């Protein structure tokens, strides 16, 4: 799950990670009030969307007076903000964060995430900020400083010093950076974050170390123990169909194609999409019904696929392990009847109770095209949309 910058900064503040003062607003009038309250010579008006690259897209502007803050806010609220990370459709801006202006001395990059190779939380720091950071990681990996945290002892001061001196920090800044990292590690672990990124982290001319930005992602599997964070979900930032899928505990991602897919297992679901492409078609979605799906879940999945108007055929590919083929067959039939299915349906079943499942499909009276393997199923689905 993702949250907004201002929410990330609330969490930072709670754990003692220094952030600039700021106020979240939803109207231009409140933006003016917030600028007055902050009382600094300049304030920064920042669009709150779940994507990076906002500055280049026009979502971060400096206001030299409360009146200008109001003016900028009225233009920014409601605009469709397109950045390198939003995709071409962009995001509608509904919330702003008004932040005090600071005298920035230097900008850095700091990221914290899991390193799968070591199974440890890893800090990454660099003097190179901005979007170019990925390019730097690719071409000059040695320019990214790393610290791998032992979960038994947590982030250690020496690791903070190594990063700080590596970044070229001096004097008081070193100690401040060490404390910053320790607080950030605590925030990461205690909130079950999966990513924390500060781009940029800044030093000010008065010698402070602050998080000028915040991106936080959380581990969905741990949200059950973080009610306060779960409440920060902004449904407006999510694809409505993906949000609906979550209600039924289905993994669904909307795509551009015409062949709707319902598959069990993420690997097989991806492989089904791959095979559709391989034989000349385009998948309309990724949908993993999971291991222990019920008839109701299959029905929900089916409705979700058919709610997409660009779907011209549906391919069901199930290899029953935990899931029994007869349960799938019943779910498919119930859903097909309920939504009065009008598009061709290709079904490939294999695994537990496969004969029973195939029999149920055959005797349903519905125009279902059976397939014996994945490639054949994909070919039949592609033929059906052409």
């Amino acid at each position, binding site marked *: 799950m993702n949250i907004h910058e201002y929410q990330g900064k609330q969490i930072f503040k709670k754990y003692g990670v220094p952030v600039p003062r700021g106020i979240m607003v939803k109207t231009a009038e409140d933006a003016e009030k917030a600028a007055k309250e902050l009382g600094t010579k300049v304030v920064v008006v920042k669009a709150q969307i779940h994507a990076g690259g906002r500055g280049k897209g026009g979502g971060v502007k400096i206001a030299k007076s409360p009146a200008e803050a109001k003016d900028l806010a009225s233009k920014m609220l409601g605009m469709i903000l397109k950045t390198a990370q939003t995709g071409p459709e962009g995001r509608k801006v509904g919330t702003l964060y008004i932040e005090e202006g600071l005298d920035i001395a230097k900008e850095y990059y700091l990221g914290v995430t899991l390193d799968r190779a070591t199974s440890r939380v890893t800090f990454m720091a660099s003097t190179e900020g901005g979007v170019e950071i990925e390019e730097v990681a690719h071409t000059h990996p040695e320019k990214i400083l790393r610290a791998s945290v032992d979960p038994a002892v947590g982030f250690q001061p020496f690791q903070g010093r190594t990063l700080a001196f590596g970044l070229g920090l001096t004097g008081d800044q070193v100690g401040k950076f060490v404390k910053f990292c320790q607080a950030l590690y605590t925030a990461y672990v205690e909130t079950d974050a999966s*990513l924390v990124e500060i*781009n940029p982290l800044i030093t000010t001319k008065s010698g402070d170390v602050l998080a000028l930005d915040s991106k936080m992602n959380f581990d969905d599997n741990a949200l059950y123990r973080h009610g306060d964070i779960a409440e920060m979900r902004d449904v407006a930032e999510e694809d409505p169909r993906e949000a609906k899928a979550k209600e039924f505990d289905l993994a669904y991602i909307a795509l551009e194609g015409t062949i709707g897919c319902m598959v069990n*297992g993420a690997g097989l679901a991806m*492989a089904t999409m791959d095979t559709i492409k*391989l034989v000349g078609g385009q*998948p309309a979605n990724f949908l993993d019904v999971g291991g222990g799906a019920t008839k109701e879940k299959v029905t929900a999945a089916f409705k979700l696929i058919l709610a997409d108007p660009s779907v011209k055929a549906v391919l069901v590919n199930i290899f029953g392990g935990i899931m029994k083929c007869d349960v799938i067959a019943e779910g498919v039939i119930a859903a097909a009847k309920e939504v009065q299915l009008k598009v061709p349906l290709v079904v490939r079943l294999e695994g537990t109770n496969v004969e029973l499942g195939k029999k149920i499909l055959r005797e349903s009276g519905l125009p279902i095209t059976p397939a014996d393997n994945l490639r054949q199923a994909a070919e039949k689905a592609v033929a059906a949309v052409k």
Partner: protein
Amino acid sequence: MSILVGSNTKVVVQGITGSAGSFHAKQCMEYGTQVVAGVTPGKGGQLFEGKVPIFDTVEQAVKATGCNTSVIFVPPPYAADSIMEAADAKLDLAICITEGIPVNDMVKAKRFIGGTKTRLIGPNCPGVITPGAKCKIGIMPGHIHKPGRIGVVSRSGTLTYEAVFQVTSLGMGQSTAVGIGGDPVNGTNFIDVLKLFNDDAETDAVIMIGEIGGSAEEEAAAWVQANFKKPIAGFIAGASAPPGKRMGHAGAIISGGKGTAADKVKAMTAAGYVMAASPSELGTTLVEAMKRKGLNA
């Protein structure tokens, strides 16, 4: 011989009284697996299916039954704790089926088991099966398997079934099939399993199935190129996956730009794998890999 599990494997089921645990414990027993104990805290002293003794702790189960392998069906909030309990009881192998364990719990559990003798398979995996020893530990459909000499290792559960099914359909069988699980933190990686298959006299050839994300497949490919002696076929799921809407850069930085399907296929092909374009061709691709090394299927 096979790998990881065989005729000497005596299984304790952690979470045996839960719905998934009881259903699959029964399935495993019907297949022929020696399920000698179950663990559900607070239910010690009862019997499962009228014959398998239930204990409060894994330690008690070990003392009373000599079990050496655990399979874990405990719900996600408690699963990491169960993994650590299995390791503390000095089991040889713990196979965790549970899906949805918080990553930070697994980071700690992995650190904990690092100093023990226990090997962890999973979590979020279908388990391990050695058909020749009638030993099925996990949730895979037993009837698609057949005793034989092909090793299977995969990150994806249902794709493992695809591979197994095709191997069986072609008249070959499996020495052992291992699902290592798709979670970011898991106990056993491709290389660990490939080493075991390389040294196993009863495995002639291997199918390895990976997916996008991380760099485990690239690392495995490098190891295979330098060390692996047997024919090996591969498949990577996710070639068509969209780049995805991302929040930041950290994921890309940590992998150093690796992790796409194309990168993985390239690395594996260069290392001597014969790659399948679709999972439907896993079986025939394996046959091709065997032919190239002068083996008949």
